[in-house]
């Protein structure tokens, strides 16, 4: 199936509550990730790579940073005369207010759906970091004759997010015959990443019906209740890199997992595009020492760094020692300070000689612009 026939919808705000201070002033989609990206870069790049040319980004409040980041859409080649990138905030049309839930949000953007001339719609949230060839998903959907195909992976049940579907029984054709919502289990499950494809008219119909009945749960009222009426298939993406961000802890763990080469190779198999900021290369000073770390451009490293994720423009002074930490854009760690198991948001300043330490299971979070 040609990606041109598929409309992409990205929900930029879903599950923000799970990330606490990281989403206090930004959408889930604009959370910084892996030294130089933001979470929305992954669904955007995957969609564009599969040939999708029109993408709507549904957002509620706090979308300034998202708007700044996706801008005109140029980094993803989505700055187009026809199709391209559409930001879909609330209050943009008379009937649209803040979206209360996913059904609301889709219903409020029904005009956008109707005015798009694609046949299919692919929906994705931003909290599953994965790099997968959606083209294969499209082909699987077309070949199976499914009404809806949902991408899932096998692994531990994500925590801290509401409304996680698990595919409990899948028949030999890939059709899901039994599913559960928010299953309590510590065993491996086959769970939904909330990335799904269906015909656009089907989504329009399902959402219009659910809205008219004042139903509020997309998962329960649209997916689960139609398990008999519709052929809902599972697409297994377990062989892709999948990181599910469902808490500060899983944000930290997923970030750190990219220090493994194998994970990087999977996630960056195809290039992930992002907004560039034209930094110079990172400069390492005479006494710097770097071990097992990922570093973006524009840093000046004069201290010691181990097991860290370092974003653009970070400065680490002489004698400073930073371990097991995530330092976001333009954060400065001044001379002789000691930092361990810390997540520092943008533009944090850790003063000379300060010592800060969390643990790997309880990283200390510093909010944007904090001076410590």
């Amino acid at each position: 199936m040609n990606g041109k026939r598929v409309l992409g919808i990205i929900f930029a705000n879903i599950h923000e509550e799970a990330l606490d201070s990281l989403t206090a002033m930004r959408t889930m989609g604009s959370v910084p990730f892996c030294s130089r990206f933001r979470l929305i870069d992954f669904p955007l790049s995957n969609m564009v790579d599969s040939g999708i040319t029109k993408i709507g980004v549904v957002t509620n409040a706090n979308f300034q940073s998202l708007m700044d980041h996706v801008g005109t859409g140029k980094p993803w080649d989505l700055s187009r005369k026809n199709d391209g990138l559409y930001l879909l905030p609330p209050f943009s049309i008379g009937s649209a207010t803040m979206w209360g839930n996913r059904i609301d949000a889709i219903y409020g953007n029904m005009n956008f759906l109707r005015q798009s001339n694609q046949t299919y719609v692919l929906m994705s949230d931003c909290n599953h970091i994965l790099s997968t060839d959606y083209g294969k998903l499209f082909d699987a959907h077309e070949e199976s004759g499914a009404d809806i195909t949902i991408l899932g992976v096998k692994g531990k049940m994500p925590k801290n997010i509401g409304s996680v579907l698990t595919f409990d029984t899948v028949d030999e054709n890939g059709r899901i015959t039994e599913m559960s919502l928010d299953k309590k289990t510590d065993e491996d499950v086959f769970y939904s990443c909330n990335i799904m494809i269906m015909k656009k008219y089907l989504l329009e119909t399902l959402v219009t019906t659910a809205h008219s009945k004042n139903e509020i749960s997309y998962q329960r009222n649209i997916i689960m209740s139609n398990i008999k009426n519709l052929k809902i298939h599972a697409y297994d993406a377990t062989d892709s890199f999948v990181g599910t961000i469902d808490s500060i802890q899983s944000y930290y763990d997923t970030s750190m997992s990219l220090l493994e080469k194998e994970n990087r190779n999977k996630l960056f198999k195809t290039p992930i595009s992002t907004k560039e900021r034209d930094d110079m290369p990172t400069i390492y000073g005479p006494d710097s020492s770097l071990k097992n770390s990922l570093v973006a451009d524009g840093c000046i490293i004069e201290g010691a760094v181990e097991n860290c994720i370092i974003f653009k423009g970070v400065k680490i002074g002489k004698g400073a020692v930073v371990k097991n930490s995530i330092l976001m854009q333009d954060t400065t760690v001044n001379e002789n300070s000691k930092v361990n198991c810390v997540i520092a948001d943008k533009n944090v300043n850790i003063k000379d000689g300060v010592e800060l330490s969390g643990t790997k299971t309880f990283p200390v979070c510093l909010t944007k612009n904090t001076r410590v």
Partner: protein
Amino acid sequence: MAHKTEVVAMLLAGGQGSRLGVLTKNIAKPAVPYGGNYRIIDFPLSNCVNSGIYTVGVLTQYQPLELNDYLGNGQPWDLDRQNGGIHVLSPYEAIGGAEWYKGTANAIYQNINFIEKYDPEYVVILSGDHIYKMNYAKMVDFHKKNNADCTIAVLEVPWEEASRFGILATNDNDEIYEFAEKPKEPKSNKASMGVYVFSWDKLKKYLIQDENTEGSANDFGKNIIPQMLESGERMFAFPFKGYWKDVGTIDSLWEANLDIINPNVDLDLSDKSWRIYSRTTMSPPHYIGKNAVVENSSISEGCEIEGNVDYSVISSNVVIEDGADVKYSVIMPGAVIKKGAKVYYSIIAEDAVIEEDAKIGEIPELLENPENWGIPVIGANAVITKGKYIEPGVMVKSGEEV
């Protein structure tokens, strides 16, 4: 489309740059990688944009494919415009036959129509082989203030080196009264940087006149400037201070690269008010491994570093494996230095592969005969086979396997 535009810049990117040898075998000189994240042309282009000049003609007739591809629609330099923007200008066929660009002045002459579309007051002429940050808007202001016909940017060079440059003699108010190309006895130490501002009506007149002059080399330095001086036009020298380096030779290119990590050199690429833009490769962050030792170096995104790097510039997507040793070298994008390989005082071009235990170059102090010293250059996509030694000063051609 072509609104009136006060200043149009014309960038002479045409030179084959034969002094850069294997590096310019397949790419035009301005497209040669520099400083880890850049190519030479990023400097004049970024200077233009930062100076508020958004209409730039890039003149080239030699190997434009990679340059065209690099410039693309101009987006990385914010030059993807409806009005103005970046235009690569190759020679074309008119009725009555076609002509390649004969000299720098002829290249501009052949593009008079392009310039006229914008009806500019001033034309800035730039070249594509210098690394420097310069506010051309200030130079245009200087030109206006002096009511000049031509303004030439000058740099004070050490007196003992002055005879290697085009030297301008000026009076107290910066007016030029003499121009001498590589004079034996220089009258001043003000060297032309090859950056000119012309009032367009004057330049046009001299271009046409020069084109009709039998035997002219159609060159700015050799013909246009002397002719204007002789005719008594108002010509001024605009003093420039700061980092400026010609990267027209292997040695100067190598040196200019290492300057970005030299704290004693006045070239600040981190200045947010004067960013140098470049087309990036959409790579992940670089990774520094558990056993790597990296000191005094610059490393760009997409690299995987497991070996040792000292006093070197490592461009994007370079792989340096465990136990490899890189010192005082410039590694261009995509090159691979395999296990145990040694790279000393070298330039390794794009996507070259140095196989295990090969050795490129030598540390000068360890050379038996220091006279033989020189920067070895490994051309793009070349492969240096396992255990092979490439001596200082040797050039390996692009794509060759040695």
